[in-house]
């Protein structure tokens, strides 16, 4: 996936099926190749395979999270991989953000959870934007551009149906209910996004999304200072980089136009807004 190779082991058939579906377009590395993260999604014990079945996610064979019900195995895998990247890949400055590309430039949607960024991300992908990531902007320390790591787009609750309607061709997997985040499903990344996963791009637009049901679609200019602080707040490993992180984010902000964006669910209007933004630059 982008610069990362994960070696995933699991005895569970549903996990194999989900990987086959969502990572269909990804390169499968040769068994003798180095993998960055040897991970396992499996029941914690033999008993737990059958009685109230649960699964754990292990990195290097050490469990990372509390066990979850077995139906959530693929979701756990995805969260686990996010955790691995966010806590280990300090060769990047990693920002909690969706990242998309149009006309050779990157759009960042840095935001806390429940801001609607994943829904917006899926909608833009549905209408032709290239997906770099729905969760994490990997900013290269030396170049300041964003490295793609396109994976399944995580959708939650209402946005699952919204996206099914908006993006009829989407390959959306099984909906898993009652996770910590509610109902969760994943949409397969487009083959083209995966094919171009080695093409890094610089950020041209930084837009802070905010979803409020029924709110009008509006794109407003945002001060660079405020956008900068949002990037700092949303960065997983800003503290690791100290002054270098400060300078790096300042460079990213320097080259970008910053906006805040509010919307209330009208995805067509949202996509038109971003398309217009991309055309105007």
């Amino acid at each position, binding site marked *: 996936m982008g610069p990362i190779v994960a070696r995933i082991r699991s005895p569970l058939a549903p996990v194999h099926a989900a990987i086959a579906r969502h990572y269909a377009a990804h390169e499968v590395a040769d068994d003798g*190749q180095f993998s960055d993260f040897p991970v396992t999604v499996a029941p914690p014990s033999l008993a737990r395979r059958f009685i109230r079945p649960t699964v754990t996610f292990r990195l*290097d064979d050490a469990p990372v999270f*509390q066990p979850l019900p077995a139906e959530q195995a693929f979701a756990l895998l995805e969260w686990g991989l996010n955790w691995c990247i966010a806590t280990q890949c300090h060769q990047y400055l990693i920002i909690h953000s969706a990242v998309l590309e149009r006309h050779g430039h990157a759009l960042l949607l840095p935001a806390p959870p429940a801001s609607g960024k994943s829904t917006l991300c899926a909608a833009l992908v549905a209408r032709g934007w290239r997906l770099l990531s729905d969760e994490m902007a990997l900013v290269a320390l030396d170049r300041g551009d964003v490295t793609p790591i396109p994976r399944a787009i995580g959708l939650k609750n209402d946005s699952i149906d919204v996206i099914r309607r908006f993006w009829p061709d989407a390959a959306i997997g099984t909906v898993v209910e009652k996770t910590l985040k509610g109902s969760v499903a994943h949409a397969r990344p487009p083959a083209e996004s995966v094919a171009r996963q080695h093409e890094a791009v610089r950020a041209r637009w930084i837009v802070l999304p905010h979803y409020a049901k029924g709110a009008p679609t509006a794109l407003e200019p945002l001060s660079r200072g405020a956008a900068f602080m949002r990037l700092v707040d949303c960065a997983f490993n800003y503290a*690791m980089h100290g002054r270098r992180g400060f300078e790096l984010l300042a460079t990213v902000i320097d080259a970008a136009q910053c906006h805040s964006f509010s919307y209330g669910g009208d995805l067509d209007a949202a996509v038109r807004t971003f398309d217009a933004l991309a055309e105007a630059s």
Partner: protein
Amino acid sequence: MNAYRRLAGGGDVVAEALAGGNDTARDDGPYWEELVSRAREANLLGTLAERLHERALIDRVPEAPRAHLAAARIRSEAQETAIRRELRQLARALAEVDTPIVLLKGASYLCAGLPNARGRVFADIDILVPKSRLDDVESALLLAGFVTTHVNAYDQRYYRQWMHELPPMLHVRRQTVVDVHHALVPETSRMHPDSAHLIEAARPAAGMRFSVPSPADMAIHCATHLFCDEDFSHATRDLVDFDSLVRYFAVAQPDFWERLLPRARTLQLARPLWYALDWSVRVHHTPVPAEILRDARRDAPALPLRWLMNGLLGPALRPTRGRASTRWARRALYVRGHWLKMPPHLLAWHLTVKAFRRENASGEDGKSADAKPDA
């Protein structure tokens, strides 16, 4: 035949790589994957990165594993900066308390400028103060914005009555933790080393309000922490620390070997020191003079116990890849750790209470999948 290798079932790839006994340029995916994975699990990735840098070998590492070493280095540099900042804050908080304060473990290695501080993963800051000044130190920390953790009555009693330290103190805004020790091992231990010895022999750390243990005491405390603590998950890394300390002091301090065993005996910590020396030689081929090892063997336990311990320690000290033998060994050693700390009747009660609470706690001992990674 090397007993360790027989017991542990094979080469220790991390120890070998740390010692420099591998071909860095080799483009062998499975080898690097195993090495990175085991080192990461043992929190030794940063240490490995440092050693490769020191030997000017880092550029020969293949690109993909090299990225992990680079990331580990970034992390250890950031942690070092964080520890230094926190020490400045602590010095300020404790400025008015008139007592010697000795840094232990990672913070002491850092302030003494020791080689094993580089690339290290740091967590809490450990300090040692005389028991008589404990209240003053705790008050000063509370005034400076720290709060006490483990607030339920059982844990408070566990720490204050039975252990060698206060419950960890957390600075709310900075989210940093200080462990305030008043003894080297818990009150309820069978051993009763007098921490006054260590405090007395401590030397000031350059330009700081704190002092660091003498070389012999540092090595002995490292051995004690490794072999007497109940939590063996850091065992692999602690043994690397011990090997590094001993190698450094053997060169930097001419009478280090002369002082080491007598000092351990004065502190009543000769047994953990013997284990540390024995295992450091087996795993890291530490150059311990033969006559020192012979002498130290006097403090080894009787042979049957030694066989049992070696059977447990071998698997426990290897960086694990989830092998059942390691997990079992560590669990068995967990009980041993407790046993050393507490008389049996207390131990039984403590373990029962702990087990019960773990079942009832929701997510207390693990991380929720929703938690924001704190790297």
